[in-house]
């Protein structure tokens, strides 16, 4: 059962992200991004990482992409002045190289076949919570400081005049 | 003399080194405008330094080869670096040369240096700190610091107070010497770790290093690094092009110190560090270095012959004179090395005096081109007489100081390197040619240039700072005993130690082993890299 779901959601995720990358209008890309995020959340669920799937949906899809859309609306670049993008030489080279990277990813994946047993609750709320507040307490605190810095940074940058 | 206050006696050398530093610090607080005060203070300071160095020479015990007036204080103990200063037969007279020349040079700048007098004097005092430090340092680390310290003031002296192409020359001077000394630093560090590897104790002390047994292959590379650093400084043949530029564009005082003392740091370095620490490599590389020295002698003489600028001529003559000194050092016998040391002092005096004399002319006519002068002998007879005495001392006329040094070098070098010495001896002829030709074009003949007709002769101050030099020219020429006797013990000990260490190091290698095999593992199958330690 799981492989079928994996392939479905995998395909949705890949398709979504291709659409994000190729759309001319940023709003379209944003919407496709939401689709991709949901697909990834589904994958988390497949791997019993329910807590993370929830976080993904709420924080990521909910907050970050909304922020994107909010900024797109704010900037409100008129249709005509959107940069015209043709596949010039440099960009083509870039795509090739990215393809190369994907190929390498595949190679790595094929080589490191991990024979681990699927543990059920590795992603559950209780497990992640315990780890977060015991072993990785320091990291947890640091991220909070990071977020604080990000908030201040964003305000300072985007504010018209201080 | 021995009644000097006790603390001064035990720390005499440190006082010698750091008195000018204190002086420099004092000068900062003096008013900039009052040039006379600045000059007099600097003069008094350097004179005091000289007077303090006299007891060192007088109380120096010529019978032992050991370091005297030694002061050893742990400086950075965890790395085994100590502030270790001392003087022995080899460095005594170079120290005296430095402290002797400084007051004279300062006195010569009373009328020639007008702008930024304060900074000029501070740099001169810093220069003296560096120079005295180099000759007294016994710790490699301390030596390196003083070696680099000297560069900075000299760079500014040439760069700020120089003439026409001074920036180019200053940078060229700095880079040439610095490039060499960086290599030396690498060698010092290698030596430092090798000392640890062998004895398990970190130390950069020369005396500790002296007993060290260094494998022949490693010795080669270390000697090469040291030799290159000192070759830049001497300057030996291929690395000499910075000297004429530096001399031409340096102010008179700068080029006097540059020629009289800074060049000797190179030869002194060879004699104090490169040869004793790596005797096997030193002896094996002698043919190469001696040939370069002899090329330097002839090359310096030939090129000096066609110079149009007096200072450049004297600069190339320094290349020739120091070629002689190098030849003497690599004779590895008492005559050669004592001749070399004496010639270092002689060159300091005669070339220093030559530059002072050129400075006097430059002050009056603001040009150094030989073609601008002619027939001065009639206008300035006293100056002509001084110039004649110094030129003859530089040519190496017997009875004056140049001859004693040159003769001892050639006698010493004759036994090991017969053909080379004969070629070097021919350098004596060309020395006479280019100097007398210059003297004739400047002094003899009729007055061609109207501006020369009413040049004032040497005034009292100029005579005051030329006289001591002329006294030493005659003193060393007629009675060099006072100088040679103080060196005997140290030089004989050095020669004996080199020979002993060389025999020990070569005990294992098969007789008749070619140099290449010894140093480059050709045909030995040994796969280890030459610099592995």
């Amino acid at each position, binding site marked *: 059962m799981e492989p079928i779901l994996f392939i479905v959601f995998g395909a949705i995720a890949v398709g979504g992200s291709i659409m994000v990358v190729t759309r001319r209008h940023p709003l379209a890309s944003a919407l496709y991004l939401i689709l991709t995020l949901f697909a990834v959340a589904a994958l988390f669920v497949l791997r019993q990482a329910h807590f993370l799937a929830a976080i993904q949906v709420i924080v990521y899809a909910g907050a970050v992409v909304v922020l994107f859309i909010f900024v797109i609306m704010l900037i409100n670049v008129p249709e005509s002045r959107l940069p015209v993008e043709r596949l010039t030489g*440099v960009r083509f080279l*870039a795509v090739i190289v990215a393809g190369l990277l994907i190929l390498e990813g595949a190679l790595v994946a094929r080589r490191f076949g991990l024979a681990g047993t699927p543990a059920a609750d590795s992603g559950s709320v209780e497990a992640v919570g315990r780890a977060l507040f015991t072993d990785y307490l320091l990291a947890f605190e640091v991220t909070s400081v990071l977020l604080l810095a990000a908030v201040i940074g964003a305000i300072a940058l985007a504010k018209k005049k201080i | 003399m021995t009644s000097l206050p006790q603390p001064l006696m035990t720390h005499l050398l440190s006082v010698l080194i750091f008195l000018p530093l204190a002086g420099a610090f004092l000068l900062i607080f003096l008013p900039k405008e009052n040039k006379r005060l600045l000059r007099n203070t600097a003069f008094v300071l350097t004179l005091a330094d000289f007077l303090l160095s006299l007891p060192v020479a007088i109380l120096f015990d010529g019978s032992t080869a050991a370091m005297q007036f030694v002061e050893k204080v742990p400086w950075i103990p965890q790395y085994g670096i100590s502030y270790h200063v001392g003087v022995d037969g080899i460095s005594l007279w170079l120290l005296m040369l430095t402290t002797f020349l400084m007051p004279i040079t300062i006195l010569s700048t009373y009328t020639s240096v007008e702008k930024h007098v304060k900074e000029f004097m501070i740099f001169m005092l810093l220069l003296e700190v560096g120079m005295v430090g180099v000759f007294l340092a016994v710790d490699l680390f301390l030596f390196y610091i003083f070696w680099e310290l000297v560069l900075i003031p000299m760079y500014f002296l040439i760069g700020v107070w120089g003439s026409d192409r001074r920036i180019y020359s200053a940078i060229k001077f700095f880079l040439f010497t610095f490039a060499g000394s960086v290599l030396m630093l690498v060698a010092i560090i290698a030596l430092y770790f090798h000392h640890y590897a062998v004895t398990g104790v970190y130390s950069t002390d020369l005396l500790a290093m002296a007993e060290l047994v260094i494998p022949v292959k490693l010795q080669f590379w270390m000697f090469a690094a040291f030799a290159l650093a000192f070759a830049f400084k001497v300057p030996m043949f291929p690395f000499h092009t910075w000297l004429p530029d530096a001399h031409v564009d340096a102010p008179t005082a700068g080029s006097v110190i540059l020629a009289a003392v800074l060049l000797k740091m190179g030869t002194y370095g060879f004699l104090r560090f490169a040869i004793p620490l790596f005797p096997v490599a030193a002896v094996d590389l002698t043919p190469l270095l001696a040939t370069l020295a002899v090329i330097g002698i002839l090359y310096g003489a030939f090129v000096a012959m066609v110079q149009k600028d007096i200072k450049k001529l004297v600069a190339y003559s320094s290349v020739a004179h120091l070629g002689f000194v190098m030849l003497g050092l690599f004779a590895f016998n008492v005559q050669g090395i004592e001749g070399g040391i004496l010639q270092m002092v002689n060159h300091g005096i005669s070339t220093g005096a030559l530059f002072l004399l050129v400075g006097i002319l430059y002050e009056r006519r603001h040009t150094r081109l030989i073609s601008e002068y002619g027939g001065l002998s009639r206008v300035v*007879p006293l100056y002509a007489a001084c110039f004649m005495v110094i030129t003859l001392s530089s040519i190496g006329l017997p009875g004056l100081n140049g001859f*004693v040094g040159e003769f*001892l070098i050639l*006698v010493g070098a004759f036994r090991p390197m017969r053909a080379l010495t004969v070629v070097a001896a021919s350098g004596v002829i060309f020395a006479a040619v280019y100097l007398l030709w210059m003297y004739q074009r400047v002094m*003899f003949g009729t007055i061609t240039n109207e501006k020369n007709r009413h040049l004032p002769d040497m005034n009292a101050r100029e005579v005051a700072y030329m006289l001591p030099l002329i006294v030493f020219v005659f003193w060393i020429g*007629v009675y*060099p*005993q006072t100088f040679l006797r103080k060196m005997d013990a140290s030089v004989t000990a050095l020669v004996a130690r080199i020979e002993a260490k060389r025999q020990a190091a070569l005990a294992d290698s098969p007789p008749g082993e070619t140099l290449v095999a010894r140093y480059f593992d050709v045909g030995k199958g040994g796969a280890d890299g030459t610099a592995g330690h």
Partner: protein
Amino acid sequence: MVGGILQYLWLVPALPLLGVIVNSAIALFAERPVLLRENAHGEGGHGAGDAHGHHASPPYRKLVAFLGPAVVGASFAVSVLAVLALAARPAHDRLFVQVLFPWVQAGTFQAPAALQLDPLSAVMILVVTGVGFLIHVYSVGYMSHEKAFARYFVYLNLFTFAMLLLVLGSNFLVMFVGWEGVGLCSYLLIGYWYEKKSAADAGKKAFVVNRVGDFGFLVAIFLIFWTFGSVDYTEVFARIPVLSERGVLTTGIATAITLLLFVGATGKSAQIPLYVWLPDAMEGPTPVSALIHAATMVTAGVYMVARTSALYLLAPTSMAVVAVVGAATAIFSATIGITQNDIKRVLAYSTVSQLGYMFLACGVGAFAAGIFHLMTHAFFKALLFLGSGSVIHALSGEQDMRKMGSLKKRLPVTFTTMFIATLAISGIPGLSGFFSKDEILWKSFSSGHGHAALWAVGTAAAGITAFYMFRLVFLTFFGDSRMDPDVERHVHESPYSMTVPLMLLAVLSVAGGWIGIPEALGGHNYFEAWLAPVFGHGTEGAAHGGGHHSLALEYLLMAGSVGVALCGIGLAWYLYRARPGVPKEIAGRVPGLYDVVLNKYYVDEIYDAAIVRRIVNGSVWLWEAFDATFIDGIVNGVGALVRGAGERARRLQTGVVGSYALSLLLGAVIVVGFLIWP
């Protein structure tokens, strides 16, 4: 008391040194202000030659005029006493060494400042101080109206000091000090009138050519030191037998040492090929030419060869070289002497030729004869030079013989003294020249190292000498006056201070030879006996050479040489007295040869082109091409290289944000690729 005087041997060189110090003090403090004042109001402009304005001679000049000669006179007196003290000693131990102070000492090398008096150096100091004293007195008159009077006597005293050091030195190093000292003084004195470019050039040329010789001498000293372990004469000569047995001192090394010493000698005594400086040295004042370039300095080479005779005897090849070079120089410079028109140049070439004789004598082992000729030559050549000096003085600076003539009546004393000297030099029997020159010719024939060809060359040269000497006398003193009218008006006999030395020298030229009359002519050769201890060792070939040659042969050869001399005189009389027009005819008929000989076989020009030009151009190339472009090229090249690399590296930073991302990606791909590669 007599023996005690030897302790004061150091006074002999010390007195002239005292003179130097006092005179230079006077020159600096008394003469300089006078000169500077004259420069100040531009009066100093006129030529430095024999200016005739008789200044009221300031007091300091009288002091110098007295002190200069007095010091050398006192030194002469001490020398005479010292020689007498030495003579009082028995023949075998006539050697006195006085060590003054340890001069150069380094490891095994010992060279104390020490003086040595033995028969050889006794002769030399007598000649140097004796003739020197007369020339000093003469100079007072000759240089009376020179402005830089004190400076002249400083140099002359310095020269005497250096020459005495040379002959009295007890080791090679002290001799070398004197050797270079006299070289310096000849440079200073030739260039005395430094305003004349030719004088300054001549001085420089003399010093450099001497220096070339000194180079050879220097290398010889090294070789001596490393073979004998010392530079002291007595030690070196004492060790010869021991070392030659042990094979340390092979003939090869002995030859090398002696040849190098001979190089030094040719430099100093103007033999081929290093004689070129002597004719130019005539630029100096005439007394200088007399003292330095006739009597004393040029003989230093002969003295040195004689001093090291023990070494030369070990190396027959170098003896041959010395003899051949001596003979060749004698004949070669004699031929040049024929065509010269400057009176002093003729005498200069005559000196070179006579020195050739002395070397010929040493070359054949007759060292005593060589030194004997050295002494007699010093007398009559100094007289000839001083005579020509008084002629030039009288003609207010005129030196060209073609503008002289009929001076016989106007300068009687000069004429008679010079005539005596000319007779002596031509080898007329009875006079000193005959005895010494004939002795040399005889020994060159009869001695072990001698050879008939050498005798023939020597005799031919003697003939030519007689010819050009009498040509000089006829042109200068006989015939009608060819002088310019205004010069003729001023002609006057020189003052007594100049003529008295001439007379004394004339007496010496005549009597000088009598102490060396060979047995063949019934006299007992005191001179040879006096020098025997110095050359005693193994001069079997020369000393009593007459043994295996019959007396008759000796007379025959003597007659031969006198005959040749008379022919020379006759030819000169015929050409320059009887038919004055003939010389021009002969010159006209063979112009090529005449010009070549007149221009001294173009030797100077050849040297200049072959050596001097080449060195100068080579050095210019070395400086411009090698130093400035090659080495500096590398140095500046490195600088340019670094700047160029910087320039290119700058382009990598494109500024386009996209390219940064791309390079980032590239890096990642490469790293991952690298990881998964093995």
